[in-house]
């Protein structure tokens, strides 16, 4: 006998009949009646009128019946809040039942009754269940806390349930731990400022232990929670990775993806030259490939994520091209994703295979897939220069098929190929022109028109071709109209004699007969240009176009980083940050990858921000101790100006207030690379006062610099960045103005430049070079100015620097001579960089080593000076200095004086050790530094 019979009663008066049956004395009849009620509920009938009668059946000794009544309650309690109270007593009673199954059932159902009125009655039973002896009840109660929190957060906090939940993370039962972690994560996600999951090495250790013992789902909860943690240093990062990697062998794809997320995130902190880093890279590839044997939906999630991973770390899958070859029976969404990844992995080494595949795909029947395959061929041509010729000939073959959408798609990509390799493949234009008539899609028409206009001088009948488009001008889409206008103007400039009439015609069509403002404006601009200064017109319209870049569809790096932190989730499938599609998540912190920080403090650690945002009083010491002879020079130079410290600028106070208001949401912003709080600026008003007499003595100047400038601008917590100053005035450089500064971000020295074009003409072809300098600074890559800089345009560029360039001692020591070239001329200027930029992240010396070194170094290398008017206590000072890679190794307190021992390492390997003495109540610090040459 099956349950389907319960669905069959459909006659009128049914409710009435059910009511009678529910109130029957016979237990069996009662149960049958409840089943009928649930059946009606299932098919969507409203049976809420039976509420009191069903609730009356709640006190039963039949488990099946009880479950059904509970189910009914969950569905209708909200619509009958007053009557739901009737159920409270039974819940309270069931929570004390001898059978753990009943206790858990009661506590589980209780939380699903989202009626505010009854929630407070549920607190006592829940409290008991959280401490139940049976883990089955405890794991259910843990989830119930999250449910209750969703209904009434305040109540849960007042009742102290959150603390109980945190305690459950140390429970002896792995399933309880997993559910507690899940519940806490859920609460933390909806209340980002709650700071619930204050993960620390101890709690992380507990989670990692539970990871080995809980169910597959529990493993996912724990891994997802781990992914929110930021290890203190690379060693901790590595040890977590080592304990997470075995999960890559789990049969459940979701466990694998969550493990990949943790590894991808924590890898960021590992130095690339570490052996383990390479091992980890190798371990990631096979499980990612195996995900492609999972069910299609999981394959889809995996592919979307692989797309991100390939962009972030192309080396992982670079040899795995073949696994992304499309199978005939793949669902279309899998096919399209595979194609995307194939293009990303295409390289000179595998291009022949890729092209053969793409050609095969381009002759399939699925239109979307074919189009994408054709487009992919074009992208290969642009990406792998050596293959361009083969790609073009493949596209020509495809055009010969005369399949309409193939031809159109091919023409669109050929246009891009022309943009990338101008004057190379024009021989194919004739073939393209043959297909003019078959083009009916705007994008293809626009592309074809662009080609005709661009190469008008080589196409004999260019005027005829363009004229043919002109007939139906008003029926064309804007895209085509704009392109046609430009193309005809180009044609006119190239062959003025024969085409005057044509250009007149198009200009009047665009300006007089069109109501599209874009088109009209462009038409007027051309018209005026042509009528006033044809030479200028030529320069503008026929200007050389910048080459298009290789990969146009890369995800922007900060978004990519955020998405990597969301591997496996909807965000990673949509390739959008959660704030873009989850309601009410606007203020939520954007996740970031941790910065690689050697053994230093991670810049992301949120408490750095908050500590700084607090009441920083007047001044704190920030120290640029320096090294040896080089430093003597530096000292000379820098020590002169700063002697006074003004009151903090009024703006800082306001910024501080703003910080507090915005709270945690801003942490990520401030705590990221920029690090820290603007309020800090105020704290650094003081200047070092006493200058060591000896030139040879280190410390001082640079330090003063730090303080002094810090007072003026909002000094970020992470590392000190001076404000931008003008390095090259426009007057001296034919209209090019360069201002800039230096910064150390995520362990990389950056030269941050603002280029402004104050001249009348366009500037292109920027390049930069440095003269030899004291610390071997050199650009680590070309100057990334990809688009031409128009008049009055400004562009911000940041140029990563390396310290492996040629070395020559400069005077002053931190002087840097720079040459910038553009299409107009070469310009020279010099600038000075703050020495603190050279402090490296692994400058934290081992305690023992520190001690030995401190004793070893002769007194000659020692110098002392004072810092006046610092009102920070030693802890705040120490954390502040850490932001600039000045690490506190030890602290001791002698007679009310705090002594901080610190170490600094410069990029050229020179160590500086320092002792900072801080006396409570005395705003003047004493600093002693010694240096040791590099190892």
């Amino acid at each position, binding site marked *: 006998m099956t349950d389907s019979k319960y669905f069959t009663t459909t006659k009128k008066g049914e409710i009435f009949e059910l009511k009678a049956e529910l109130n029957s004395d016979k237990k069996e009849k009662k149960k049958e009646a409840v089943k009928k009620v649930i059946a009606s509920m299932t098919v969507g009938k409203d049976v809420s009128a039976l509420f009191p009668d069903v609730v009356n059946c709640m006190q039963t000794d039949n488990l099946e*019946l009880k479950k059904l009544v509970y189910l009914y309650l969950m569905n209708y309690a909200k619509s009958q809040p007053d009557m739901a109270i009737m159920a409270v007593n039974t819940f309270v009673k069931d929570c004390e039942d001898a059978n753990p199954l009943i206790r858990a059932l009661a506590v589980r159902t209780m939380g*699903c009754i989202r009626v505010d009125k009854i929630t407070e009655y549920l607190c006592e039973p829940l409290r008991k269940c959280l401490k139940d002896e*049976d883990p*089955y009840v405890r794991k259910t109660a843990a*989830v119930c806390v999250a449910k209750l929190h969703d209904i009434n957060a305040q109540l849960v906090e007042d009742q102290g349930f959150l603390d109980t939940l945190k305690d459950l993370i140390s429970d002896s039962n792995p399933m309880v731990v997993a559910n507690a972690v899940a519940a806490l994560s859920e609460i933390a996600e909806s209340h980002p400022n709650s700071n619930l999951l204050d993960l620390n090495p101890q709690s992380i250790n507990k989670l990692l232990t539970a990871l080995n013992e809980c169910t597959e789902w529990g493993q996912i909860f724990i891994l997802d929670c781990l992914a929110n943690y930021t290890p203190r240093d690379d060693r901790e990062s590595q040890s977590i990775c080592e304990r997470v990697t075995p999960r890559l062998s789990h049969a459940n794809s979701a466990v694998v993806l969550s493990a990949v997320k943790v590894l991808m995130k924590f890898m960021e902190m590992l130095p690339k030259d570490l052996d383990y880093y390479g091992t980890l890279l190798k371990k990631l590839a096979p499980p990612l490939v195996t995900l492609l044997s999972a069910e299609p939906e999981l394959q889809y999630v995996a592919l979307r994520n692989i797309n991100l991973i390939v962009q972030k770390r192309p080396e992982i899958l670079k040899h795995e091209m073949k696994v992304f*070859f499309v199978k005939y029976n793949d669902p279309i969404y899998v096919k399209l994703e595979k194609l995307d990844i194939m293009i990303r992995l295409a390289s000179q080494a595998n291009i022949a295979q890729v092209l053969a595949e793409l050609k095969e795909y381009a002759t399939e029947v699925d239109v979307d897939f074919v189009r994408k395959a054709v487009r992919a061929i074009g992208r290969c041509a642009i990406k792998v220069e050596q293959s361009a010729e083969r790609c073009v000939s493949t596209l020509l073959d495809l055009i010969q098929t005369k399949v309409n959408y193939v031809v159109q798609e091919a023409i669109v990509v050929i246009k891009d190929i022309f943009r990338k390799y101008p004057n190379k493949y024009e021989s194919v234009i004739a073939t393209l022109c043959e297909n003019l008539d078959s083009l009916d899609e705007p994008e293809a028409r626009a592309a074809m028109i662009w080609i005709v206009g661009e190469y008008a001088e080589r196409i004999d009948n260019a005027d005829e071709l363009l004229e043919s488009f002109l007939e139906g001008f008003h029926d064309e889409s804007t895209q085509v109209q704009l392109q046609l206008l430009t193309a005809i103007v180009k044609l006119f400039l190239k062959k003025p004699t024969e085409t005057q009439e044509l250009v007149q015609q198009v200009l009047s069509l665009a300006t007089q007969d069109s109501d599209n403002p874009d088109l009209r404006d462009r038409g007027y601009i051309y018209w005026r240009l042509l009528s006033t200064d044809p030479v200028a017109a030529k320069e503008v319209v026929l200007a050389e176009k910048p080459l298009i870049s290789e990969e146009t569809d890369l995800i922007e790096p900060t978004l990519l980083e955020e998405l990597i932190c969301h591997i496996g989730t909807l965000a990673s499938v949509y390739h959008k940050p959660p704030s873009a*599609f989850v309601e009410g998540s606007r203020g939520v912190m954007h996740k970031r990858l941790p910065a690689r920080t050697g053994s230093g403090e991670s810049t992301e650690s949120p408490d750095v921000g908050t500590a700084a945002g607090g009441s920083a009083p007047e001044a704190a010491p920030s120290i640029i101790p320096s090294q040896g002879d080089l430093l003597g020079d530096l000292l000379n130079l820098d020590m002169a100006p700063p002697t006074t410290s003004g009151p903090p600028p009024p703006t800082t106070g306001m910024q501080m207030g703003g910080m507090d208001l915005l709270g945690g949401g801003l942490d990520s912003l401030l705590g990221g690379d920029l690090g820290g709080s603007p309020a800090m600026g105020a704290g650094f008003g003081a200047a070092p006062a006493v200058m060591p007499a000896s030139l040879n003595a280190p410390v001082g100047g640079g330090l003063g610099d730090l303080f002094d400038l810090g007072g003026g601008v909002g000094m970020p917590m992470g590392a000190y960045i001076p404000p931008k100053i003008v390095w090259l005035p426009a007057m001296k450089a034919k209209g090019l103005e360069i201002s800039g500064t230096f910064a150390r971000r995520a362990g990389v020295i950056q030269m941050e430049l603002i280029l402004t074009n104050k001249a009348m003409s366009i500037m292109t072809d920027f390049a930069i070079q440095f003269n030899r300098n004291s610390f071997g600074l050199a650009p680590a890559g070309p100057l990334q100015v990809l688009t031409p800089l128009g008049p009055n345009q400004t562009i911000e560029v940041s140029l990563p620097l390396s310290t492996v360039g040629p070395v020559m001692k400069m005077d002053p020591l931190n002087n840097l001579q720079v040459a910038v070239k553009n299409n107009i001329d070469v310009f020279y200027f010099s600038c000075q960089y703050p020495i603190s930029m050279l402090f490296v992240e692994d400058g934290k010396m081992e305690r023992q080593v520190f001690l030995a070194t401190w004793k070893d170094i002769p007194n000659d290398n020692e110098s002392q000076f004072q810092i006046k008017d610092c009102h920070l206590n030693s802890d705040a000072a120490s954390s502040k200095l850490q932001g600039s890679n000045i690490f506190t190794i030890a602290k001791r307190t002698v007679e009310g004086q705090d002594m901080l021992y610190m170490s600094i390492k410069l990029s050229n390997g020179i160590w500086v050790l320092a002792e900072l003495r801080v006396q409570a109540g005395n705003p003047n610090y004493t600093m002693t530094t010694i240096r040791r040459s590099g190892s």
Partner: protein
Amino acid sequence: MSASAIFILDLKGKVLISRNYMGNMDMNEVDHFMPIMMRMEEDADSSPLVTHGSAHFLWIKHRNLYLVAMTKKNANAALVYSFLYKMVEVFKEYFKELEEESIRDNFVTVYELMDEVMDFGFPQTTDSKILQEYITQQGHKLDVGAPRPPATVTNAVSWRSEGIKYRKNEVFMDVIESVNLLVSATGSVLRSEIVGSIKLKVVLSGMPELRLGLNDKVLFEITGREKCKTVELEDVKFHQCVRLSRFENDRTISFIPPDGESELMSYRLNTTVKPLIWIESVIEKFSHSRVEIKVKARSQFKSRSTANNVAIMVPVPSDADSPKFKTSTGSCKYLPEKSVVQWNIKSFPGGKEYMMRAHFGLPSVESTELEGRRPITVNFEIPYFTVSGIQVRYLKIIEKSGYEALPWVRYITQSGDYQLRTN
């Protein structure tokens, strides 16, 4: 974290049964699901993830049912899909087959299961054997014999209950290797992959500790035995029961097995092996008149092995008619509903070559619909043989009662995704 609610819908989009797990979304949102699916279908589009406003639907299809999870948060999508598939598995264990009828016939149990497998969007116990210990289809009196949650549910060993007893203790192992092959129309092997799986049928009493030894190359390198023939496994996936950290450390596969049938592990190898059955084909299409097909099949394994139940599916145009066949062995069948010719060879010994010719008529009026060039696919199985050469060296069974138990091992190689593209 994952699903706000889960729905089971019929093909028309009618809700058969649903469970609201978080109560934070309007359950009627699901009414938008089917219209969106229809619209996508019209555009020949398809995606396992559809959106309506702030509601996201993650769905899978099983027979005539849609299983749909609804969320409005940044849910863990991999977890949701994996959970939906697990649900299907659980329902199948309970009702033999999961389809519209079985949902209707067992709606009370379905509700109970939905209550147990997920709580507030967090998947809980999904092991059907354990679930069956306390969610049964008979009504229970609370006072007598009402089930209690088995300790297994929350134990670290959550897949095997204590107190299992058998008179005769045995373990049956099946080592099954599937060969995935993709060959281009020009006859070059694009991809060749072996996906293996070791399935267990465990008939053992108590809480036995098992250790499985394979001729794993990495293991042999660690232990310094390199003379024997070994297999390099590219990626290995294990059942929940295997101690992953232990495997990571010293490649030991140790576990307490679930009772009854389960998949212990799966593995993947990319070593290029000679395609076991090689197909050469010529498909000549004479528009408006006929198609002529010539297929040559060659078995490229040792002659002491034999492939059984070989079926070679050759695509033909969908408007073909009047089939004629000639084969050197086996028989041919035209399957118009799939537009293929299926050539069956009951037994195909190694080192042999067979031929098949087929002839079809084509209508003089050609259909306007463009047809894709479908590949030739091949099904087969070869018993007592693994392509990779993997071997079970031992299976140690230790139980504290000290009983003797026998392991039985069977090897089989079969076709996986075996495709040869045609011109």
